[in-house]
C-alpha cells in the first residue's frame, strides 16, 4: 500500500474531455441558468430576480404560465399519439421485412430512406405535400370531398404533423425491431411449428418477449425525440393555425428570439429540460424494473 506509485499523469488524458464538456454543455447551460434568475432593463445591465420567472412559469393563471401549460399538454398528447402509432406499426413492418435474399437490402434501404433526409427537408416535403392547391395529399383529399386545410384547420394541422412524424420515424422502430427479430434463433420458430402454435402465439410468446429490450430503447429514443420536436412543425405549420401545433420548443424559440424575453425563456428551457429528463428516467426505471422482476 505504501509503495503504491502515485502519478498525476492520468489528468493529461482526462483534461481534453473535461474542456470539451465544459464548452459544449456546461458553460452554455450555466448562461441559461444565469438568465433564469436575473432580469434586465436593457443596456446589458442585469439584476437578481430570484425565482420569480419560475413562479410565473409554473402558475397557469399567468400569461406565460398558461402558454407553457397548454404547450406542455400538446407535447404530451403528441408524444403519446405518435408512440401509439409508431410502435405497433414499426413492429408490424419489421415482421414483414424479408429475412433472406436480395429483398432484404432493398427493403432496408427503402425503410431507412426517411431517416436519412435532413429534418428541414422533411418539413418542406410535407408542407408541399399537404398544400391543398398543388400538394398531392391536400389536393387529392379536397378533390374527393374531404375538408382538409392544414393552415386553417387545427385537426388537419395535427393530422399532418402526426402523419409526418410517423412517416419520418416508424422506419427507425422497424429497423431496431428487425435487428431484435433477427437475433431470435431459428430453433424457437421451429419449436413453435412443431408444437403447432399459431402465428399470433409465436408473436405473443416468442417475438414480443424477445423484443422487449430493443423496444425499451426504441420507446426512450422516440419519446425524447418527439417530446423535443421542433424543426418539422416549424416548417410545416409554424405552430399554427393559431396556437394549435405550438409545441414547447416552438413556443420557447418564439419567446427567446421573437420577444427576446430572456428570463422567461431561460426558466422555460430549464423546466422543459428537467421534464424531459424526469419522464425519461421514469420510463427507464419502470422498464428496467419490469425486466429485473422477470430475471430475478
Amino acid at each position, binding site marked *: 500500500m505504501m509503495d503504491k506509485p502515485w502519478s498525476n499523469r492520468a489528468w493529461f488524458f482526462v483534461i481534453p474531455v473535461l474542456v470539451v464538456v465544459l464548452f459544449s454543455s456546461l458553460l452554455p447551460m450555466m448562461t441559461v441558468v444565469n438568465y433564469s434568475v436575473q432580469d434586465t432593463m436593457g443596456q446589458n445591465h442585469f439584476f437578481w430576480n430570484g425565482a420569480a420567472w419560475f413562479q410565473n412559469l409554473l402558475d397557469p393563471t399567468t400569461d406565460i404560465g398558461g402558454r407553457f401549460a397548454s404547450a406542455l399538454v400538446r407535447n404530451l398528447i403528441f408524444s403519446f399519439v405518435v408512440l401509439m402509432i409508431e410502435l405497433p406499426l414499426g413492429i408490424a413492418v419489421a415482421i414483414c421485412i424479408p429475412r433472406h435474399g436480395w429483398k432484404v437490402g432493398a427493403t432496408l434501404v427503402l425503410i431507412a430512406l426517411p431517416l436519412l433526409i435532413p429534418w428541414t427537408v422533411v418539413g418542406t416535403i410535407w408542407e408541399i405535400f399537404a398544400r391543398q392547391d398543388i400538394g398531392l395529399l391536400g389536393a387529392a383529399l379536397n378533390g374527393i370531398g374531404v375538408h382538409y386545410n392544414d393552415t386553417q384547420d387545427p385537426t388537419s394541422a395535427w393530422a399532418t404533423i402526426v402523419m409526418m412524424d410517423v412517416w419520418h420515424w416508424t422506419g427507425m422502430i422497424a429497423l431496431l425491431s428487425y435487428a431484435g427479430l433477427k437475433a431470435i434463433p431459428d430453433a424457437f420458430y*421451429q*419449436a413453435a411449428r*412443431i408444437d403447432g402454435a399459431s402465428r399470433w402465439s409465436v408473436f405473443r410468446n416468442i417475438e414480443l418477449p424477445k423484443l422487449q429490450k430493443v423496444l425499451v430503447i426504441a420507446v426512450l429514443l422516440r419519446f425524447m425525440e418527439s417530446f423535443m420536436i421542433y424543426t418539422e412543425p416549424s416548417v410545416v405549420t409554424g405552430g399554427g393555425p393559431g396556437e394549435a401545433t405550438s409545441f414547447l420548443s416552438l413556443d420557447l424559440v418564439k419567446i427567446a428570439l421573437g420577444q427576446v424575453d430572456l428570463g422567461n425563456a431561460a426558466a422555460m428551457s430549464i423546466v422543459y429540460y428537467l421534464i424531459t429528463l424526469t419522464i425519461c428516467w421514469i420510463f427507464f426505471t419502470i422498464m428496467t424494473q419490469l425486466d429485473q422482476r422477470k430475471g430475478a
Partner: protein
Amino acid sequence: MSLQLNSVGLKYGADVIIDDVSLTFDRGTMNVLLGPTLAGKTTLMRLMAGLDRPTTGEITVDGKSVVGVPVRKRSVAMVYQQFVNYPSLTAFENIASPLRVAGLGKSEIDSRVSEASRVLRLDPYLQRLPAQLSGGQQQRTAIARALVKRADLVLLDEPLANLDYKLREELREELPRLFAATGTILVYATTEPAEALLLGGTTATLWQGRVTQIGPTPAVYRRPANIFAARVFSDPPLNEMTVTRTGGEATLPDGRRVGADHLLPGLPDGRYQIGFRVEHARLAAPSGNASAFQGKVAVTEISGSESFVHVDLGFATWVSLVLGVHDWEPGLLAEISIDPGRVFVFDEAGALVRAPDNLAARAMSEMV
C-alpha cells in the same frame, strides 16, 4: 410406427446438403446420428420432422409417404442444443403448450405435466419463467415439453451440448429411459463418439451429408466400414498414415521400407490408408526400436487420469493415450510403436479391407 427414409436428398442450389440417405427407424428404438458439425445431422432431423421437404427421395411412415404433410399434422417432438422455451410463459405453461394446442382437457393437461415434471425433477420450479431457471432446468423443461406430447417421433438435437458435465451425465442416463417407456422412435444427434457409445442403440455415422455406416453402436465402433466412419467415431482423431505396398515391401510415409506382410498381410499391391485409435499408439522414450516412428512431442493434454500426447512425426501428428498424468514436455523426443494386429486397413477409396481379427470376429457375432 416405423419411419423410413428412402434415398433422401436435399440440395440448396448447387450445394448438396443431404446425399442419398436411406434409414429405417422402428418404434421404441434408440437411434444415434453421429457426425461432426455440418455433417447434416440437424438437416436430416428437419427432414424427418417435416420442417423441410427433401428434393429427392421419399419419407414414409408405416409405408405411407409423408412428404408435404405439414409439421403440425405430424406427431413429432424436438429438443434443441439451445434451450428453447417460450420466454413469457412459466415452466408449467411451457410444458403444457403442445397439449393446449392439441386442445386437451384441464385435468389431462395437469396430470401429464405433473408426471413429466416429477420425473424431470421440475416440481419446485413450475411457476417460474425460463429466465429464472438455470440452464439445466431450462433444458429439462424443454425435454418435459417433448415428453408430455407423447409423440411418435422424438428428435433430440445435441440436447446436452450446452450443459455442464455433471448434468450431462445425469440426463444422458435418464433420457433414453424416459422416452423408452413411451415407445417412441428416439433419434439423438451428437458429435461425440463417447456419447454415442453410452447411449447404445443403433448408430448411423454421418459425413458430408452422407450416411457412411449404420449398425449397432458398439459394432460400428469396433468395425467401421470405411475410413469416414472410423474418423467420425474417433475422438481424439484417428491416427492415420498412407502405406504403399509393392511386392513384398511396404513403403511407410517417412520413407522407410518394411516387410509388407507385417502391416498388410495377404493384401494385393497398392496404396492403403492405415488408421488406429489413440489407445493403440504406444508411446515410449526413444529406444532405437527399428519399427517404431520417431518424433517430437507437440502438446500434452491431461484429461482426468489420462494424458493425450501429441507427437509430431514430420508426415503427421499422432496422438497417444497414456494412462496416468504424465509430464511429456513439448519438444521431447519420443517414439510411437503400433501393433499391426490392432490397426484398421482401408483401401485408397476408404473402404475397410482389414480389421483387427479377434475384434472383427466378435463384432460380427454381435451383428448377427
